[in-house]
């Protein structure tokens, strides 16, 4: 499995907060509120404009004692959803 080298940051109008075992994403411009699960909330908190998605997957796999390949695939899928929804923006593409 190739590492996802993309780097994301959250869009400027996005704020998020972890509450219990869920996360809430507030998109001010779109006037939307999204709810994500605990893992999604953790991924959001790790998206900082400098870590690669592969690095985020490594961190998550270490925290959760989960299979790295599975976590990496889930992080990539979730990141694609965030990009499609405009919650996150690409800082660095997979290959430069």
């Amino acid at each position, binding site marked *: 499995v190739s590492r996802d080298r993309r780097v994301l940051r959250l869009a400027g109008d996005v704020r998020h907060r972890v509450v219990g075992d869920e*996360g809430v994403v507030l998109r001010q411009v779109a006037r939307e509120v999204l709810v994500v699960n605990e893992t999604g909330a953790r991924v959001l908190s790790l998206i900082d404009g400098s870590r690669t998605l592969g690095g985020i997957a490594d961190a998550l796999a270490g925290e959760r004692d989960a299979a790295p390949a599975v976590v990496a695939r889930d992080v990539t899928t979730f990141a694609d959803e965030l990009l499609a929804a405009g919650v996150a923006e690409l800082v660095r593409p997979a290959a430069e």
Partner: protein
Amino acid sequence: MTAATFGERFLSGEPPRERGGMEIGSPGELAGAVALPGGSHHLHGLSAAQVEALARRFGERWGSPLGAAAVEVRVHRAPPEVFRTVDTRGWEYALDFDFTADRVHLAGLGLYADLHLPPAPQQGLRAGLWVDSSAPAAFPGAAENLLRVATAYRLLAVGGVLVHAAGVACDGLALAAVGRSGAGKSTFARAAAEDGATVLSDDLVALLPGPKGEHGATAPPRLAALPFTGDLPAAPGAPEAPCAVVLRLEQAPADTLRPLGPGEALATLIACAPSVNADPHRRETLLATLSALLAALPAGACRALGCTAAGGWPLAASLLREAERS
């Protein structure tokens, strides 16, 4: 909303505040006050007819301005040409907002207002309200529109939130049935009233932080009545009670209850916190305030209530009774 488009649905050009000579003074020199959760809202520059109209609208909450104001409003007359004539047939009314770090401008049917937000809550809010001088009958509605927005900001400043909800109190505890327009709040509230419960409001309630107890423990939030209602009249007095249950109203073929996750609960309240939830300068405060209020609720207090046309009240009442027993 950008400054270029702000108010264009309602104003024929620059806002009255920017027009200088277009303002033609206050309607009168009288003053009055509305007692609301978060503090008294004082209005100045009123005519005798406006005082009478507001007294009718706000009932026993209306009186003379005494002490410090939580919100201070100066009313101005503006010539009718400032405002556009709007064909409201088949139209859903929503105010226009322009948000800045320390001010909120709003425009609506026959009104423009400029709300100054202080850096510290003890300073109170100040507002200017410009109303169409040729439409005296529209004044109470215009004033209430500003007061609703001012209440949202005032409550946020003191750690509370204005919530689109039917508030109901029964046996010393209260519940908030949260939902936007058309969710069934009035139906729910009517069913509660017919069953002998006290309806705090069928449209907007104040969710306020509970008092700090010993050792820093926080009591559950309080749910307080507001005179901002939909189909039902305002509750007499100013009832409030500890909030034991928060329900998200959902249309369903049968009355059902399911737990609401903490994220769902927070998202629901954000979506139902009018005015401030659209303000980009207040989003961190809103998130933090609602998170704190939700954390202070009893465990399992948040549920989704699927309700039929009957309004789901019997299920909600059983939850309140359960909360009372525990």
